[in-house]
């Protein structure tokens, strides 16, 4: 039987139902988290976020050490990953001969293909011993008096976590920065050279031109570092404490969920953990939204050719919780 052409409404009906489902899923996740943390929200309110004690024995739960650990490790990661990532982007767009560009960029992006669990494995057996050696050396010098380097050299701790996160974030920063740099109009760079600029000055001008986009890339990296779970859990040392020291074993929000969620014995304990999950959800949402806004604003900028073939790159958009 052949129907008359035109819109029979079937397509819309069918696909919109699924579309609604996807939207509902997000709401469901939010609600489930909210529901799962109600006891903790009711009991602690905002003090949950400023409490320093995580004491399952007495039923006191404060999330500050985890928030601290998450922010500290993410910022540390960005401190390394931002310059390195942008450096890679610059090197592979402006410095090396064209035929090396793609392979080099590909290699850097290979870092994104390594699953988090493998980073963790490598972290335990390769990175942590190296970091421990480094820490042992530092802790023999007067530097140990600085709060940044205080405490025994465990190897496991903030420094290892930050470094491993940096590695995981680098490909995100570099690939987005590369895109941004490539989007800078050729004329812009040529103009710089024409004015007698050195290579670096031309690059700097390009970087300046694409600064919002690069900032967005760094944001994306932050979003990814923030929710990262396995690799961090395996090297951060899992001790909730507020310490400025790079050497100190600390804890992150995602890691405490991974370690304690299926084993929290009291209801309040479980709800406290779920509340950490809820906040992770809310924060990554905000970070992702903000970075998207930034990238979007630069894509709207002059000279951007954004409507080419959106080839699915090896790197999908940043997932904050790339926990793997």
């Amino acid at each position, binding site marked *: 039987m052949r129907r008359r052409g035109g819109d029979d409404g079937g397509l819309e009906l069918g696909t919109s139902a699924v579309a609604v489902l996807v939207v509902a899923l997000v709401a469901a996740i939010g609600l489930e988290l909210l529901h799962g943390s109600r006891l903790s929200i009711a009991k602690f309110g905002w003090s949950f976020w400023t409490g320093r004690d995580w004491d399952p024995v007495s039923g006191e739960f404060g999330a500050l050490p985890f928030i601290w650990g998450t922010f500290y490790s993410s910022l540390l990661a960005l401190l390394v990953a931002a310059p390195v990532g942008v450096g890679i982007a610059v090197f592979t767009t402006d410095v090396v001969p064209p035929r090396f560009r793609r392979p080099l960029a590909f290699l850097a992006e290979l870092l994104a293909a390594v699953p988090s669990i493998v980073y963790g494995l490598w972290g335990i057996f390769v990175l942590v011993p190296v970091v421990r050696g480094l820490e042992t050396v530092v802790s023999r010098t007067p530097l140990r008096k600085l709060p940044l380097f205080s405490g*025994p050299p465990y190897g496991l701790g903030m420094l290892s976590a930050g470094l491993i996160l940096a590695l995981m974030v680098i490909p995100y920063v570099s690939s987005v920065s590369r895109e941004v740099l490539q989007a800078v109009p050729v004329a812009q760079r040529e103009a710089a050279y024409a004015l007698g600029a050195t290579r670096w000055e031309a690059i700097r001008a390009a970087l300046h031109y694409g600064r919002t986009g690069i900032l967005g890339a760094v944001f994306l990296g932050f979003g990814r570092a923030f929710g990262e779970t396995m690799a961090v859990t395996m090297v951060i040392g*899992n001790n909730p404490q507020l310490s400025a020291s790079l050497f100190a074993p600390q804890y992150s929000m995602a890691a405490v969920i991974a370690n304690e969620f299926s084993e929290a014995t009291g209801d309040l304990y479980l709800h406290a953990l779920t509340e950490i999950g809820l906040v992770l959800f809310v924060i990554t949402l905000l970070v992702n939204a903000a970075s998207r806004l930034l990238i979007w604003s630069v894509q709207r900028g002059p000279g951007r050719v954004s409507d080419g073939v959106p080839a699915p790159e090896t790197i999908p958009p940043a997932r904050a919780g790339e926990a793997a």
Partner: protein
Amino acid sequence: MKQPSILGPAALALLLGTFAASAQTQLNGAGATFPAPIYTKWFSEYHKLHPGIQINYQAIGSGGGIRQITERTVDFGASDGPMTAEEIAKAPGILHFPTVLGAVVPVYNIPGVTAELKFTGPVLADIYLGKIATWNDAAIQALNPGVRLPDTPIAVVHRADGSGTTYIWADYLSKVSPEWKSKVGVATSLRWPVGVGGKGNDGVAGQVRQQPGAIGYVELIYALQNKIDFGSVRNEAGVYLKASLAGVTAAAAGAARAMPKDFRVSITNAPGKESYPISSFTWLLVYEKQQDPAKGKVLTDFVRWMLKDGQKYCADLAYAPLPAQVVALEEAALAKVK
């Protein structure tokens, strides 16, 4: 018309592993890592005897065992810290069945030290409170005259998950150190004053092995299998004892004579010259009323086997078998499980 290809569904079935023909009964259990070596041994042996029965045991920590049996997401739990009254209230009808006894030992990794170290409860407590921070601290040195202890900082390793081993450790430290009792207390998860957290007995043993200067606490078998040094601990009678089957059995003797009906008993710091002070029973957590009677039957059959034939695997894995009185009591209690 083309015949539907059989290859697709066949491949799918294979991938999904729907070997329906084998009619497996699967029980799921989770909990303590302390007895995991003997549990996985038992379940593997039991599967050989009864190929139709698979008992999947995941060592996620005693806290996890308690939590998951309370949620009824597993068919049995396992813990080496007995459930608290509050926890039992949330899992009405839960029964504790002791399976074996084990010892928690202080393991350490001090490069250059080959002598076996001696510890006392208070010294261990002070190390874990962060009050003793280097290996050559006077308190440790006093217990170990003649051992050249380095000035290496002590890297304290503890559990990151809810753990019965932690419970036993903390239970012991609370009995010998008032400060530990007031500052930290006893539970499967604690607020640790110092140290790094490892997941499971596995994780702690792994980190101690990796970390020069580390101290940790694990079940005896983890130290033996991985050849990690562990020290002797002074018992209640003032004798320094290295963990052993005999020491654990001696510690259990008193408890075996006066076993409470629900089997929840602590035998840390037990009196007697031969008693190893950080010993404990470890328990299976089973509901009295089984939701699926068929599974309940499989489970009780297994427990009966474990109480008799299973005990012979203890010695190889350095666990102490259950005293005969306890086995008898358990068999009586097992009749209640339906």
